[in-house]
């Protein structure tokens, strides 16, 4: 799907994946030798939006570059909890934007705008 709805759909899926990575990092905050996961899709999505004639966005899962503790674990619980809050609000914002688009479509099709 292209257009604004496609972009929002991709972003919503991406944020959901980020939430999963954050939840996984928190679940493994005491696992020895665990490297935190960092999910990124924003850079790729921006490039795809900016590309002339359209582009394809992708999601990447990489290691978090944070320094590791003596047990080889690099999960910073406070950073992850902040990320979790941010991702939740981002998700809700995306959903609200999608609903706004659907209301526009509904109104343009003769239904209600609200």
């Amino acid at each position: 799907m292209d257009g604004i709805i496609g972009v929002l759909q991709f972003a919503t899926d991406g944020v959901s994946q980020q939430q999963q990575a954050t939840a996984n990092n928190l679940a493994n905050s005491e696992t020895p030798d665990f490297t935190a996961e960092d999910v990124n899709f924003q850079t790729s999505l921006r490039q795809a939006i900016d590309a002339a004639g359209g582009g394809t966005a992708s999601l990447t899962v990489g290691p978090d570059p944070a320094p590791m503790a003596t047990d080889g674990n690099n999960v910073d619980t406070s950073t992850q909890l902040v990320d979790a809050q941010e991702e939740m609000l981002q998700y809700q914002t995306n959903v609200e934007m999608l609903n706004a688009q659907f209301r526009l479509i509904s109104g343009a099709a003769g239904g209600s705008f609200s």
Partner: protein
Amino acid sequence: MSDLFGNINVSGSGIAASQTWLNTIAGNIANMDDVSPTDEATYGEQTPIFEPDAAFGQPGQGVTVAAVDEGSTAGVVESDPTSPLADAQGDVRVPDIELGGQMVNMIQAQTDYQANTSAMADARTAYQSALTLGT
């Protein structure tokens, strides 16, 4: 995304792991004052071994408790001539567990548990907002 509402399961695995950890700490503290004869083994300090539950190249699926390590059952030999279990030299064997260390672990396990419940609440809020799509 492997399953519906998967993020909640990821946090759930973290809660279960923290709970196992808390259980082992409770067991360790409860058995701190065990007394055994010197010719028998004593209670060994239990420690859960955590392992990530992950598929390669995919966002992780949470954590699992691979095993509960039962530490050395050798404990320490103490002099307690009044104990009915004391040997000819008046010695008994007691577990090698320190309350301080257990309390520190307990605080860590508790913080861990809280962090996971917080992440689960966030996932729930996000999923609930997704359910409003198109309404």
